[in-house]
């Protein structure tokens, strides 16, 4: 039996085991009936183990056939998720929140560690030009296209013109987002290093900040103006509610949110370095604790965990490079298990049924987004004075969308909840994200491989 076959056999056996265990529990033969413990909670242990092993094995298969490992993680998540085999149920997803919290901070720390301040300083013009033109193109064209599409979708046939534009704007901001997580995961997997990789990571991370602000503005603008007859939960929900400070003006909140997160990042960076200088023991557990701590502290203090961890990573890599070397090695070791579960969980959230109903509309949105990404990035790169070869291919790195986009889609759903628009708009948003989720890593891998920047950090640690 060759190794690929062996991996498939192991995946099938693991899935069968998990299905049998679920059936056993449903039949009331397990502990559940005796202890009163939530069956979903009890089954979460199995789900974590299953996602970890199956995602890793499918990632290996994926790599074997020339695809990025992330694609394998996502695909197995879709297969195991509630809309396909249902081995991982919707109830279990809420107990997997811990992994999300851990992963977002870990990914941002990695991203921060990848950015060199000297490079950022030198490329500021290029990065701002790329982001500005790209976001502008996607935002304007997508808003127009969505405003035209929405009234033609069966379930949204009665939508007014104003509402179509407002919701179109929200979907367009969502289309502007890219996934720093997938970018980091593919770069880590391929051990890519070079000017293209640096530019991509810096731009993706910076763009994330821009999109967060843009989304905030768009949400408060759109939700407030929804048609009177459609006033559900939406009228109660604005950016201020999301961030948690309803009494402050928008710009103050944004400033506080972003600047506060940056200051928190500096403090976290100093604390980590202090630990590395004085204690330096149990680095893996310390790292988990740091990620977890960032996620926990961010919520009550209204900070963005992504920005906080990013600044901490950036500071450590650039200010205390030598002392933080072991810490970043530990991050690299821990990345694979965390990515496996994080992306597989993201895959489980893809609703195949909704995708089946709306796939043609979603496809239109995806095509428009792709063409605007390509055009906008090329134009922005040209205006920013980026090398022509890099500028031509760079757009492929912005296609991916995953966790953050799904979370933003969830916020749109919350904003529209109680209206007739909520479910179809959410499904459309999720459908587009699903396409990009699968397409993005492929394009990114292709781009990095063609650029010749892969394998720079010693591929021996990740044997194929």
């Amino acid at each position, binding site marked *: 039996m060759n*190794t690929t076959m*062996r*991996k498939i*056999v*192991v995946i099938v*056996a*693991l899935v069968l*085991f*998990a299905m049998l*265990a*679920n059936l*056993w*529990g449903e039949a009331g*033969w*397990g*502990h559940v009936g*005796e*202890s*009163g*413990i*939530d069956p979903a*909670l*009890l*089954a*979460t*242990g*199995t*789900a*974590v*183990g*299953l996602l*970890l*092993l199956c995602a*890793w*094995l499918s990632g*290996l298969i994926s790599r074997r056939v020339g695809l990025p490992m992330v694609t394998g993680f996502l695909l197995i998540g879709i297969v195991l998720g509630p809309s396909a085999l249902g081995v991982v149920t919707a109830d279990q997803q809420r*107990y997997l929140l*811990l992994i999300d*919290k851990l992963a977002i901070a870990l990914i941002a720390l990695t991203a921060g560690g990848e950015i060199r301040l000297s490079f950022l300083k030198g490329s500021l013009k290029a990065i701002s030009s790329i982001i500005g033109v790209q976001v502008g193109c996607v935002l304007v064209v997508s808003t127009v296209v969505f405003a035209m599409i929405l009234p033609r979708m069966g379930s949204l046939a009665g939508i007014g013109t104003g509402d179509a534009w407002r919701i179109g704007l929200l979907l367009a901001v969502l289309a502007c987002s890219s996934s720093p997580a997938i970018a980091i995961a593919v770069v880590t997997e391929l051990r890519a290093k070079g000017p293209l990789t640096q530019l991509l990571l810096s731009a993706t991370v910076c763009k994330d900040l821009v999109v967060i602000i843009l989304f905030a503005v768009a949400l408060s603008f759109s939700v407030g103006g929804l048609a009177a007859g459609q006033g559900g939960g939406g009228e109660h929900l604005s950016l201020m509610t999301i961030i948690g400070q309803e009494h402050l003006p928008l710009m103050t909140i944004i400033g506080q949110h972003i600047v506060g997160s940056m200051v928190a990042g500096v403090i976290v960076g100093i604390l980590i370095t202090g630990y590395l200088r004085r*204690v330096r*023991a*149990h680095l*893996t*557990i*310390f790292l*988990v*604790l740091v990620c*977890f*701590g960032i996620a*926990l502290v961010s919520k009550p203090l209204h900070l963005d965990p992504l920005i906080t961890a990013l600044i901490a990573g950036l500071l450590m890599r650039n200010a205390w490079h030598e002392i933080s070397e072991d810490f970043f090695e530990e991050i*690299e*070791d*821990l*990345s*694979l*298990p965390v990515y*496996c579960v994080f992306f597989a969980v993201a895959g489980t959230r893809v609703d195949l049924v909704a995708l089946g109903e709306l796939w043609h509309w979603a496809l239109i949105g995806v095509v428009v987004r792709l063409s605007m990404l390509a055009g906008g990035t090329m134009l922005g790169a040209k205006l920013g004075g980026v090398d022509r070869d890099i500028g031509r291919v760079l757009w492929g790195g912005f296609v991916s969308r995953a966790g953050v986009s799904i979370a933003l889609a969830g916020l749109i759903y919350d904003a529209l909840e109680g209206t007739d628009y909520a479910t179809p708009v959410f499904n459309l948003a999720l459908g587009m994200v699903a396409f990009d989720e699968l397409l993005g890593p492929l394009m990114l891998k292709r781009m990095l491989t063609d650029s010749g920047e892969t394998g720079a950090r010693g591929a021996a*640690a*990740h*044997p194929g």
Partner: protein
Amino acid sequence: MDVFIAIAVLATLALVVTSRRLLQIRRHRVLAGMATGGWFHVLIGVAIGPYGAHVVEVEQIPLMTPMVLLGLGWIGFMLGLQANRSVLAALPRVVYSGAMLDAVVSMVVFCGIAWFGVRWWLGDSATDAGMLSAVVVLGVVAVGWSVETRSIHVANTPGSQRLALYIRATGSLAAILAVLLLGVWSVVRVREDGGATQIDWDRSGLTLGCSVLLPVLVGVLARFTLSLAGSSRPEQLVAFLGIVVFAAGIAAQLAVSPILAAMLTGVIVANLPGWQTGVFQRFIVQAEHVVAAVFALLAGVLMDPILGAGGFVLIGVLVFARILVKPVILRTALAGEARGEDGEALPRVSALCLGPIRQHALGPALVVSVWLFRQDLVMRQVLAIAVITGVVCEVLVLWRGAARRSAIAEAEKESDGDATVVEGGGA
């Protein structure tokens, strides 16, 4: 308080109590004994729990189930990997007979005491099934003894070194037997039938079948999976974590003891041909202290020390029984091993001989594993009984060891003084 904050608090404390700086207290023999048994950590757990600062509440612990399962799987897998054929073959016969003797006698004596003690203590306040669980758990916790010997190792002669080695090996083997016994008990399903508690033989048989079949299948699957990880450290970590959580998680769903399932999986992985377990032992060793500390902290949070006079009487009887029975078990087991290859006999009067009175550090983790699936007050009180019994036994033995050490030091000082007088007289 948010369950995530509770997890962060537990993990931070586990990190602090296992930091190098705090581990330095182990240089002191008595403190080393208390720290290795995890008793300090249990006290910290009490301090942050519902009887202390309320930082972590009992209601939050079920929400940590996946993490607790990971910890139980970790401990079980660690025990299982030790049961390698070559290691087992190298153990002297006396270790097997000692561990078996201890398991049988401890189960009979301590279950017997618990049977009467728990009934007298709880009266009608607990169900039959609850009482039966309490009895079995107290019996299982009594099996084995602490494998830490440094704190009571007084004379460093070849004979006493051999005795310390026997104590450690027998204690470790007995711990495996304790997990096995608790696992067998966990498959027993009872049902209330017309007010009477009866064993549901069909379900028990089915669960027993699962207990045997599951580790075999997962073990073989694990062997396949681990071989796919190659030499990449991140992939080895994924394979290791995945198998541990999966084995423990499936076991929990099937109502099989997670620690037993993980242990048997470890046994199978360790004994399949052509596989070196060194890589995984490295992962285990790296976090061994932290995992143990987390369980000790959890035990501290969970235990309910409001036992009433009856509970404390039961503790007294259990301590007394350990003092009476355990040294006798050790002496009986080693009766045929009076003289070693070096020609030196095992010491008959030594602080080491009191070592078996001390409880195994695995005890609190075993009770936590039972509580996870039987979340009642009785099990939290049983946990308190197990912990307090362990602390009292530990303190008694360490105090006796310290007394013995100072007696020897005194005697040596006197003999030195006599020699000086004789030498002075001679001059």
